[in-house]
């Protein structure tokens, strides 16, 4: 078990840096986590992050294809927003577990 300290709050993450509890997430924390990935979050990023969080809370299995069909971004834009492994990186920044998706 590892912890991140953000604004004096201890946040539990796993060895890969994914939040253990998605309720500890804040937009400010997302900005900090994104900057570690070299990403400067825009409104479009937050649209995707919020969509991911909503779907995760609903218990939907997430995949790149579903994001492409979300109406928010197409797959090309999604790769451009979160370069270097978009589903993993966006999930980490969204404070949700690493998706168990092969597609």
């Amino acid at each position, binding site marked *: 078990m590892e912890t991140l300290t953000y604004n004096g709050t201890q946040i539990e993450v796993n*060895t*890969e840096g994914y939040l253990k509890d998605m309720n500890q997430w804040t937009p400010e924390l997302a900005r900090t986590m994104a900057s570690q990935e070299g990403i400067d979050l825009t409104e479009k990023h937050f649209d995707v992050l919020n969509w991911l969080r909503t779907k995760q809370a609903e218990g939907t299995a997430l995949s790149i294809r579903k994001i492409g069909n979300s109406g928010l971004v197409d797959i*090309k834009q999604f790769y451009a927003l979160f370069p270097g*492994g978009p589903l*993993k990186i966006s999930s980490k920044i969204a404070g949700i577990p690493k998706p168990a998706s092969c597609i």
Partner: protein
Amino acid sequence: MQEILERPTTKVAEVPVDKNKGKVKKVLIICSKGKLEDVYAALVMANGALMEGMQAKMFFTFFGLEAITKKNADHLHTATVGNPAFMPGMPTVVAGLPGFEAFASYMMKKEMDKLDIPHVTEFLQMIEAGGGEIYACKLAADMFHLKKEDFVDEVKEIITVGDMYALAEGEGTQIIFI
């Protein structure tokens, strides 16, 4: 009993990050077969590589070309004859009955739909959108009398074997042959 019948859950392993190991940076996937399951193996691996932040190139050759033709990409079949893993115990003579292969392929596609697996043409679009590149083999295209316009738009070029090896250039590349 109830517990046993419940659907198994997928768990994600926590992979420790070792910065010193030589990472796979690029995959070149050669697909030489046109059976549904072989083509999907190639597509899933190429798309999976992109999802992990790697580069992915695909080279379709021989019967694999079927998977990138406008005409047949979404109409691939699985082999019911000569495939001992398909319904073990099924006599070959039954598996070879007219229409059986089409029926088996239909059932397989239905199962794939349930798992949200895209059709071949959509999969190719996803791979291109993710930055992957798709090529056709010149020799096989000549042999089957296929031209650029016979292939789906995602096919970038028809190239030679030499050009294919050039796609694999660079440190951390893996070539996968199907």
